[in-house]
């Protein structure tokens, strides 16, 4: 593989006493669709603005290709951005908005015109060239913003929560549009979002940030199935996180003492666990089975239903289990038919030791 297109080392940014980005490292390969995800205030947008040159780092380095970018002004970089609020120029027509980048680069008029019309056609906006921005719908504005950023044929496109202002059905449409553009253009997309569904649906790799630090980097599948720490486990997917201590070990299986009783887990492949060690257990809600015969060696709990929540074809059951505040189970809607959900009905939940992930306990969390 060639050298990374973007390399960030020890990057820091503080605003007075407030540290927004606290020494992060990552690399982005050419042509990758990479997403930075994290809760608000985690430093993801600041990271993006640092890459675009809109903020100056207070420490560390940013390399685009092999060029050190720290002191390069934003207009000398080739890092166009799609803004969260789009930041389209309200006093210009659609055509002039899209043309802007080419004009600044000194492209001559005839070529600008040809290029802009090509992009408008590609985005299905050719009929709107003379419209003003406020005459467009949300989805159309979104496409103008994309065309405006992409018209100069950059190597990397920065996107700052570009879909956060759209209606749910438009979000899905724009996601497939983004995937299509990324495939057709073959350039690097660098996408900031707080939405897990967007990040996982779009990105080849996801960088998860919290409190100004990178907490995990991996493919969506890796992050979903094997969160590397308690924060990621809580932030991604629907997981039950239970504190416990290692009681004993028999072969591949570790037995743990927890407030909800003994739980059996497969020993982590990465390293051993000692007896008496404090750990956090992650049990993914969609791996738990309700009211079926327990298989040999599986964990089992008795629970009562507190409430249920329908999300499309999935149902999340909020259960009461002695020793913990809440135990969540996610099942297919059709599985629900065979389960008695009457008040005070006892539910029998089971799951395999393979679906228990052991994380070293963290002191303060």
């Amino acid at each position: 593989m060639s050298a990374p297109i973007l390399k960030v080392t020890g990057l820091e940014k503080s605003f007075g006493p407030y540290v927004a980005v606290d020494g992060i490292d990552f690399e982005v390969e050419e042509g990758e669709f990479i997403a930075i995800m994290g809760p608000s205030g985690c430093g993801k947008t600041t990271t993006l603005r640092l890459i675009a040159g809109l903020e100056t780092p207070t420490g560390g380095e940013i390399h685009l290709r092999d060029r050190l970018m720290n002191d390069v002004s934003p207009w000398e970089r080739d890092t166009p951005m799609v803004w969260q609020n789009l930041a389209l120029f309200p006093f210009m027509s659609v055509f002039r908005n899209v043309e802007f980048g080419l004009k600044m680069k000194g492209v001559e008029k005839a070529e600008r015109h040809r290029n802009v019309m090509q992009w408008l056609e590609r985005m299905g906006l050719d009929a709107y060239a003379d419209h003003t921005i406020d005459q467009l719908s949300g989805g159309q504005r979104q496409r103008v913003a994309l065309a405006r950023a992409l018209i100069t044929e950059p190597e990397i496109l920065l996107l700052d929560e570009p879909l956060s202002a759209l209606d749910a059905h438009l979000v899905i449409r724009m996601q497939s549009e983004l995937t299509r553009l990324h495939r057709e253009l073959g350039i690097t997309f660098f996408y900031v979002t707080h939405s897990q569904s967007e990040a996982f649906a779009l990105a080849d790799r996801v960088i998860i940030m919290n409190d100004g630090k990178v907490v995990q980097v991996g493919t969506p599948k890796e992050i979903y199935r094997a969160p590397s720490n308690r924060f990621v486990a809580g932030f991604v997917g629907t997981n039950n996180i239970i504190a416990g201590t290692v009681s004993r070990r028999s072969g591949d299986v570790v037995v743990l003492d927890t407030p909800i009783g003994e739980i059996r887990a497969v020993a982590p492949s990465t390293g051993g666990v000692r007896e008496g060690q404090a750990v956090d257990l992650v049990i993914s809600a969609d791996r738990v089975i309700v009211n079926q015969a327990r298989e040999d060696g599986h964990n089992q709990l008795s629970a009562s239903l507190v409430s249920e929540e329908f999300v499309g074809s999935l149902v999340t059951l909020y259960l009461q289990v002695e020793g913990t505040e809440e135990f969540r189970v996610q099942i297919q809607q059709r599985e629900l038919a065979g389960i008695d959900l009457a008040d005070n009905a006892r539910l029998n939940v089971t799951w395999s030791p393979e679906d228990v992930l052991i994380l070293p306990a963290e002191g303060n969390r």
Partner: protein
Amino acid sequence: MKATVIFGLRLYAVLVFAFILTPIAASFVVSLNVDRFPTLPLGGFSLKWYDAIADDTTVVDAIFNTLLVGVIVSLVSTFIGFATAYTDFRYRFFGKSVYLALALLPPTIPTVIMGLAMLVYLSAVNLWGGAHSVIIAHVVMCTPFAMALIRLRLSQMDPDLEAAAWNLGASQWRAMRSVIIPFAIPGICSALLLTMAVSFDEFIVAWFISGFNETLPVKILNTLQGRVSPKINALGSMVFSVTIMLVIISQTFLFTRGKKARGFQNGSGN
């Protein structure tokens, strides 16, 4: 009961406007009257007092001075006002509230004090007694209005727009030319007209420092002090008409364009 209150309030408003506008209206009517003294019934319609103005070279000079001062003041104070408003929009720095307070201070100073201070200062630095003195003083007085108008307009602007221009390869100067100024144009036009209006009918400070290069309002007082002539009514009507026109056009710029821009911002939010 409620209807009586509304009627009372309406009557009150009409009376207030009548109180303010009757003398001006009277001056208008009398300026078009053929008689030398304003007596009822009116003598008959005539433009002779306006003709008399055109024949009086000192008055024509005063008009020319006023226009020259007005145009220069309007350009200079709008430029400084824009620069100040942009500084406020773009930067955060220590002592910014003091900076803004200072920038908005001049209109709060009583004009007599302002005039006296200008007289003392401009004589000390040998700039007293000409059109240029009035220009200097009026720029000081008009800049806050220009700044306030342009600042109001810039406050409606999405701060990301400028950064978006940089991001697309525009240098700071090009971003200023192609994004900030086009956005601020309604505010700038409005400021040009309003500062011209303020300069056009400002009397006291100009009276202190204009020396022999009188502006129109000063000319009016000086004429009044000599003898009462119906020319005064004609002059007053002209000054009033021009000023009120400038103010009205200025407001039109600000409100019609401003409303449209706000509509866009609300629309983009969903």
